[in-house]
């Protein structure tokens, strides 16, 4: 019997990363701008998606992949009711979406007809940050009632962001939330991060966010 040390040097999530790269290739080929929408439970992911659909109807053709830990189609049903194709992925209790789940979701969507794909990740501020899905942009929704300390508590997810949405700003007068403290934490983790402050209740700020989507989706088609 002999003992050998074998060099491996393989990224532990390399299998996920290679499927993410294939997903990205499909998005690029079909010129579909793809967004990975992350947030804690209750931050307003589905509300933001419904507001986005309402604002973009007639401008962009949009599809949605809904990730949920349980086999309930509440979110997908609401998107379909709003007139857009949606596919529900039940992660079976898993805390995040991964690239193979997106791959299977894409098979059920008319990707070549879509300008924009929003992937609604599982509500969680830890695990989704570790899995590349192949989307073009990582977007996080932080909401006012969650508190102003979240960048300090969940640095990894903030570091990987392309866009931050601050939702429920209509609640600022009623909730103790120090915007300067929050933004200082964000700036330390992700200097110059593109940020939109919105309210799905009043509609404030939604247009700035959807204009950004329109612009990025147009850039992809050039």
């Amino acid at each position: 019997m002999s003992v050998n040390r074998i060099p491996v040097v393989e990224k532990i999530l390399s299998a996920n990363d290679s499927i993410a790269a294939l997903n990205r290739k499909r998005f690029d080929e079909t010129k579909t701008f793809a967004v990975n929408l992350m947030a804690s439970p209750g931050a307003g992911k589905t509300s933001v998606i419904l507001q986005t659909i309402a604002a973009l109807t007639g401008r962009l053709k949009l599809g949605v992949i809904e990730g949920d830990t349980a086999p309930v189609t509440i979110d997908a049903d609401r998107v379909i009711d709003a007139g857009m194709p949606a596919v529900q992925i039940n992660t079976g209790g898993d805390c995040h979406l991964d690239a193979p789940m997106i791959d299977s979701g894409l098979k059920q969507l008319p990707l070549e007809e879509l300008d924009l794909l929003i992937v609604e990740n599982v509500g969680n501020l830890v695990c989704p940050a570790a899995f590349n899905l192949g989307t073009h942009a990582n977007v996080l929704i932080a909401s006012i009632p969650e508190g102003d300390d979240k960048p300090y508590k969940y640095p990894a997810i903030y570091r990987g962001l392309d866009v931050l949405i601050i939702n429920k700003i209509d609640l600022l007068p009623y909730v103790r939330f120090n915007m300067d403290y929050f933004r200082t934490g964000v700036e330390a983790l992700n200097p110059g991060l593109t940020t939109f402050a919105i309210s799905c209740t009043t509609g404030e700020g939604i247009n700035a966010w959807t204009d950004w989507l329109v612009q990025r989706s147009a850039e992809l088609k050039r």
Partner: protein
Amino acid sequence: MHELAVTESILEIANRHAAAAGATRITDIHITLGKLSSIVDDSVQFYWDIISQSTLAQGATLHFNRVPARMHCNDCGVEFEMLAELSPCPECGSFQLKILSGDEFFLESIEIEKEAGETQ
């Protein structure tokens, strides 16, 4: 919780390389883990003991080699090791920092046993 998916990935990579090398058993697995990667090694170990059973890797010891996080200050240009999350540049106090390293997460090597070929 995502440590289960991560642990399954470690097992798949280790077993694939061990089988290719003709191993009869994997004794040790060396994993490089950056300070900024959000993996809980105790949790990986917990799943490992369960899912490695009845594979070449059953009973293998996991070694986590923690790599420090190194930052570059975009304002004064100094490079430094980050000792705590959200700490500023030690030279000028700036938070305009770029990560140079610290998010590594890869399987560095495995140690295996092989039959040498002679009969016992």
